């Protein structure tokens, strides 16, 4: 059970935060198809940051001394670096769709094409191959929170809560949840959030009340870029051993599906992300999931083909979207470049 929850969170959190990134852009009226590209770029920047700082030896002393608090700080810095560069990368989309009034889906697709090519180009220059890894060690030994930090020995029990939510976790997971909550409140309970949402529903009306639609759309897309960049790095850190390969396994697109399934609402998105995360986790580890701890691996012994389990996340996406898309309510003005002269 502990294993299932932990692995589900590892897959669900990047999806959730990137889906929220999509919400911020779309609520302000910009379709951000470039989530995948921004994730790839953010993952690259985060890994590059980790790699360079390791090479500079800044945290070697902290690693030697097992000063895990300093290493968590290092992880946070990498997340911030990824978020900043993700935001910068998304400015390309904002510029194209706000200033140039270009078609947003095409702009997003262009970024999706650009990011993996650009990232692989840089990785080949830097690492002489197609993968950029940490300069030394692995993600778990540098960044993972373990029970030994709190004085527990190898065989000591932490209890269900401790062993599930503290032992073998990444601080990134909790930072993402925190950011998710704060930004959801920002979107629904603040003046800024209301203005942002109004620009996605009826920008003309918003403009007539003195809101600068262009600024709001820039803000929405930039927040979106920062979140997607951070999400990309969190994905690379927690599930891919902090390696960047110019690929995030389609998580950006899965996040778009989660956003639509979640009906552009944060709470629904969190639920949807957990659902997809659960099935991604089941697909990879069905053979070793022991749901109620009685030593029987139900899923492995059910006699169902492994290929079925591997299809599950995508089957579920199809089924769920087919049933929920009728009710889905996208922001009304999304995808339409704002033109002051139009009614």
């Amino acid at each position, binding site marked *: 059970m*502990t*294993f299932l929850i932990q*692995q589900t969170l*590892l*897959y669900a959190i990047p999806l959730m935060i990137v889906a929220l990134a999509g919400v911020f852009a779309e609520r302000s009226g910009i*379709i951000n*198809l470039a989530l*995948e*590209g921004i994730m790839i770029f953010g993952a690259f920047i985060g890994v590059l940051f980790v790699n360079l700082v390791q090479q500079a030896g800044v945290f070697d002393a902290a690693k030697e001394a097992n000063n895990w608090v300093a290493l968590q700080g290092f992880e946070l810095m990498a997340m911030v670096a990824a978020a900043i560069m993700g935001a910068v990368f998304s400015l390309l989309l904002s510029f194209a769709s706000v200033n140039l009034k270009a078609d947003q*889906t095409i702009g*997003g*697709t262009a970024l*999706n*094409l650009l990011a*993996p*090519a650009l990232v*692989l*180009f840089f990785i*080949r*220059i830097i*690492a*002489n*191959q*197609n*993968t950029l*890894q940490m300069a030394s*060690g*692995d*993600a*778990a*030994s540098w960044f*993972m929170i373990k029970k030994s930090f709190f004085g527990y020995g*190898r065989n000591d029990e932490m209890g269900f809560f401790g062993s599930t939510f503290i032992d*073998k976790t990444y601080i990134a997971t909790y930072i993402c949840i925190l950011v998710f909550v704060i930004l959801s409140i920002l979107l629904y309970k603040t003046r800024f959030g209301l203005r942002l949402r109004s620009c996605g529903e009826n920008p003309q009306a918003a403009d007539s009340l003195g809101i600068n639609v262009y600024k709001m759309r820039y803000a929405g897309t930039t927040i979106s870029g920062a979140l997607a960049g951070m999400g990309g790095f969190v994905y690379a850190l927690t*599930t*891919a*051993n902090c*390696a960047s390969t*110019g*690929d995030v*396994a*389609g998580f950006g*697109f899965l996040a*778009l*599906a989660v956003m*639509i399934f979640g009906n552009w609402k944060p709470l629904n998105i969190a639920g949807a992300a957990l659902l997809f995360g659960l099935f991604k*986790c089941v*697909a*990879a*580890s069905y*053979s*070793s*999931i022991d749901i109620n701890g009685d030593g029987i691996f139900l899923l*492995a012994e059910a006699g169902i083909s*492994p290929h079925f389990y591997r299809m599950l996340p995508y089957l579920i996406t199809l089924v769920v979207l087919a049933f929920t*898309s009728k009710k*889905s309510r*996208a922001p009304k003005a*999304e*995808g339409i470049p704002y033109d002051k002269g139009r009614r």
Partner: protein
Amino acid sequence: MKKLLALVLALVMGLSLVACGNNNPPAETGESNPPAETGTETQTPEESTPAEETTDPDSIPDSMTSEDGTYQVAFVTDVGQLKDKSFNQGTFDGVKLYAAANGLSYKYYQPANGSEATDEDRYNAMKAAADAGAEVIVCAGYLQEAALRRAAMDYPDIPFVFIDGYPLTEDPENPDSAVLTNVAGIAFKEEQAGYFAGYAAVMDGFENLGFSGGGGGTNDACCRFGYGFVQGANAAAAELDKTVNMNYSWQYGATFSASAELQTMISGWYANGTEIVFACGGSMFQSISAAASANDGYVIGVDVDQSGESDTVITSAMKGLADAVQWAVGHVYDGTFTEIGGTGTSLGVEDNAVGLPTDESSWRFESFSVDDYQAMYQAVLDGTLVVDNDFSKLETTEWSNVNLNII
């Protein structure tokens, strides 16, 4: 509704476009030599051979620029990364060591399209090597067979060294057709290295083992490693009169690359009591060692001594890739290639080509000692202990002391 449809359509389009976008960049850069173009890490062969040979392959640059633009010793990589800290890197170390020691120019060629490389991509890499004046081309990995056959027939004057390979005939359908005498196949007795690792792990007290192999079960080398591993574990368990459990899987390793799925699966093994996993496949090591590190588990490395990569590596089932390459390329340059051309060489303990690393820093067993290992090694060398290499018997054999759980 219309808008949603448009969005979904755009999504599909984006997905398909990105799928291409992902593959194209390596295709464009795959055969070029990026560092040479970017002007970094350039070194002439004269500078790199200051009389005395360098023994640490990592101190020899991966890329060099020769003055006349020809590269004498060429290396065509297998799938996976050049610096996989395993198969490709171990083979390339041999190329670099020989070239540096003898003042030759060398260059590596990665077939385009990464892990989806086709025979055409591989052939193009070999052709690029031949066009750049290669005097010997080292090709790593059995996947290169078809491309190698074509290249060897197109360039009959160039000797090819086929690592993890076997002699090739002109017509793959007809085993009686002429043997290509410019291809030297070099294979290893991986089952012996696997046996050592399995035996040592169980003798050291591990009771729950795992094997995660690359190539999806179609790679003979990995199959031999795995079969030997099970035999070794079984023999040790029988000696200790106990039963050990083993998860045995080829999943998520078809392309020898690290993946989130592999990491999750192996994490699941560790979470359910597996103590040590034999990571048998190039870059897959990254995922498996990450899972081990997160769960305080242990890893057995493969091909080269991987103890330096992670503290979780307790030993490595090594094969002497670098030595074999130097030995084969040496035959080319001392004019005795005809002795090995057209034949298959299988290197094992008698050639000192397989084994476990016994350096103090690499030996991390607690109760199983280097002396115990050497006794076992000697037994295989004497022929008193024979490790079977017919891996097709893995699933049909009744293992007396191993609960084999094939996933």
